[in-house]
């Protein structure tokens, strides 16, 4: 599996996803520069966390207009496996690939801590490594993570079992106290109707390395690996040679 990680200028969880895929899973990953229009034949596209363009306007509002996003939107609409984490989730909503929007946290403060997550749907390409009802502990780190949508949209998303993760307490209950940001119906992550696009606020990549003592998040990447092996999703078009060269130059020197 080859995972493409989009690098907006203000992405800051790109290297963490890279480590989760390469160190945590032993698969290959590459960075996709925001000014490029080439997805380099990757099997999965990840929009990582961060502050894509500073997000002074609205999280993700400008990122959706970047050159790479045109390709990402085509890839995702064509059935390509696309994962948006935190800021990436915000970008997916701004690009209308997922319904709803993410607004400032209920308490109007940035929040970073582990949350309890219940796997609501283990039938997606992102969650097959889990069982329905599994309880995960995964960090959140966001100021604008309150998921909101029209009641009718929420009903539709619920009815179609598109809520993938929900914020829950230690006993697995979706209580108000367990909701870190005021998200509607404790929703932490949803998929599109076709099931190939997942957006979630928590950071599975931060709990994907055994050295850090918790690998609850690795299942998301393991599921993607299985989905790609099963031929779900689709591979992005390979790059024309000239474009590939440009993209390679664009990420030269990137290190962590």
């Amino acid at each position: 599996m080859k995972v493409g990680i989009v690098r907006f200028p203000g992405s800051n969880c790109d290297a963490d996803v890279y480590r989760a895929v390469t160190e945590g899973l032993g698969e290959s990953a590459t960075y996709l520069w925001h000014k490029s229009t080439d997805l380099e034949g990757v099997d999965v596209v990840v929009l990582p966390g961060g502050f894509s363009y500073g997000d002074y306007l609205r999280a993700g509002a400008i990122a959706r207009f970047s050159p790479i996003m045109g390709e990402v939107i085509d890839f995702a609409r064509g059935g390509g496996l696309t994962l948006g984490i935190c800021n990436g989730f915000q970008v997916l909503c701004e690009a209308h690939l997922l319904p709803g929007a993410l607004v400032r946290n209920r308490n109007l403060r940035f929040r970073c801590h582990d949350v309890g997550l219940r796997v609501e749907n283990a039938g997606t390409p992102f969650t097959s490594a889990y069982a329905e009802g599994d309880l995960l502990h995964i960090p959140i780190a966001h100021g604008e993570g309150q998921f909101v949508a029209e009641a009718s949209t929420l009903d539709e998303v619920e009815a179609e079992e598109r809520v993938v993760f929900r914020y829950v307490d230690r006993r697995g209950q979706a209580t108000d106290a367990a909701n870190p940001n005021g998200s509607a119906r404790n929703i932490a992550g949803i998929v599109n109707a076709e099931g190939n696009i997942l957006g979630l606020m928590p950071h599975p990549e931060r709990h994907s390395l055994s050295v850090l003592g918790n690998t609850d998040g690795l299942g998301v990447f393991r599921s993607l690996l299985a989905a790609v092996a099963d031929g779900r999703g689709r591979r992005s078009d390979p790059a024309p040679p000239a474009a590939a060269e440009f993209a390679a130059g664009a990420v030269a020197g990137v290190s962590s």
Partner: protein
Amino acid sequence: MTRASLERVEARPGDPVMSAALVAEHGLSPEEWEQILGFMGREPTFTELGVFSAMWSEHCGYKNSRPLLRTLPTEGPAVVQGPGENAGVIDVGGGWGVAFKIESHNHPSAVEPYQGAATGSGGILRDVFTMGARPIAILDSLHFGSLDSPQSRYLFDGVVRGVGDYGNCVGVPTVGGEAIFDPAYERNPLINVMCIGVLPLERLIRGEAEGVGNPVMAVGARTGRDGIHGATFASEELDEEAVDSRPQVQVGDPFTEKLLLEASLELIERDLLVGIQDMGAAGLTSSGTEMAARSGSGIDIDVAYLPVREKGMTPYEMLLSESQERMLLVAKPEHEEAVREVLERWDLQAATIGQVTDDGMFRVREDGVVRVEIPVKPLVDDCPTYVREGVMSLAVAEARSADLGAYASFESDGEVDAALRTLLDAPSIASRRWIYEQYDTTVQTNTLEGPGSDAAVLRLPAEGRALAASTDGNGRHTWLDPRTGGRAAVAEAARNVACSGARPLAVTNCLNFGSPERPEVYFQLAGAVEGMGEACRALRTPVTGGNVSLYNETGGQPVYPTPVIGMLGVIEDLERRVPSAFQREGDEIWVAGVTRDEIGGSEYLAACHGLVAGLPPALELREAASLVDFLVEGAADGAFASAHDCSDGGLAVALAECAVGAVDGPLGCTVDLDAAPAGANVSAAGRWFGESHSRIVLTCRPGEGERIAAHGRRHGVPVARVGVVNGPDSPCRLTGAGHAIAPPAAELARIYEEAIPRRMSEEAGITS
């Protein structure tokens, strides 16, 4: 190129006329002015006066602190880069280095807490990545007035948001620090931010300007009129209204910072640069002159090429602007284009504004006309320094000699119980969760132990190794006894780092004091630095750099003298790191180190009796060093299940912290305080809440205590088994000095957790 020394330096039309008053307004004394006239051989231009004013300020020139700082040890086997650079660098093994430094942003934060704190974070991040290091962590040491004051709540809230938003956006986790609340900091909070970065040692780069003809480039944000150095007056060209509307504090842009960070690291990794430096305090002036001074070269720039934010800026303003997110770099000539390409790709401004020369001059032109021509060496290195007479103030002398006998014992068990609860509710001791949950603590996936632990622990790129970091200082102790306070800041930071299992290696320091021109403040400064030096030598932790912030006063009242130490240490095997809190029911509880009858300067006296008095606990250097060895070797041997430093609030509070901090919820314990190693005639208050140094609460698996005892014998550290960890839903049964209490662990946890949120709740109100 024309020998510029033949060119005439021309004053600018409209410049204010030089006068004694103008010189004084620039903070230069008549003697300093004479010295300037002496080596210039002529009267400086107005623009040159501005340059001198900035470079010979305390902030850049360390006028009052330099003679004291010279006494600190700066060398050691791990030190790769000592003081004098953008940041210090130590060798952490495996070819990797760690760059780190702490810096204050006290005055700006007192005026505008959010931007003051944010720009403070920005500055220290730049100091680290200009060494070629990728920032991996931030720690913040914060001091505010009492949270009972709306003003302090406003400052506290703004500062926490400012530190958080900046680091969160750049993607550097804030993993530790401290927060102290005391009326002494009421209108003059202390905001010290430490940044840590990692780099392959072969990629280390310095702030140097070498190679005649090499291009000097200004990079990043445009230069504006913000933060122009103490520009307390308006030159004739400055419009009065513009001055009034100009923000006093610079505004931070973390997004631009992130671009600068990535671009700088890419430039350094591709070896395109000769040198690079942040345009921080005194902006272009300090970066330009300091880079030239380090290389013994000169620098010739033309401000006409400097990208500016507004029209009509004078050279004076451009040289002294402190606009944020700007860097000065010297490129390798053959790579000037490549440098430009990299910066363009990151959408950053880059302008070649001049070149390196060999004539030792800092020369600044305006459209070719020379406005400034000052010899670099005397400007940077010959800043006059002052050694003053210090004297202990009467107030301190009185406080030290106070009779504490009335507070040494308790009337009842109930009083002990109430005191413990009061201390856990004291914001200086209580849980910092309210703060650190607003910080991204886990981005970059290196955080092994985050906030709430004695030291932050981060994994290093070198296989299997981890870095431990802590910031510590105690203003109250330092006020009562500067030398002891200076020693204690170093020793406490070393203990915290060693508790995690790390060998302390080096420190960065931030000296927050009042006006050194007051004899009682100079006394504090000199004593604290002496004590710091003693402890750094005893613990073999040299100083690699830092920051001095003087004149921290409001209404003529100086803050407590507050030296803050940022300590780094390395754990050879990260699997052997030691957590702070109790781990499991049934574990044995031990105490290492001697409890003496020392309640002077304690949080107990302050929180329970509103008293700051007595002599602070003594800091025996040999004891402190042995304890560190004991902790490091014990941890490497796997002898400890947990280790927690005993500091504010004493042994009873340390035990309670271990109990409430347990990962899966509070654990109870049964402890006999009288069993802990103790000196002669320790009072009841001393036993429960005294803050004797060099004491640690340890635990181990049942039956494994002999290993702790063996390590204690080996290092001459007295140790004793004092009790056992109990299960959840059980009390903390503490007995000692004829008293016994048993508050439920869960109740203590509630008090500890709610102390700060309760005070910061909406009902409490935040006003400016």
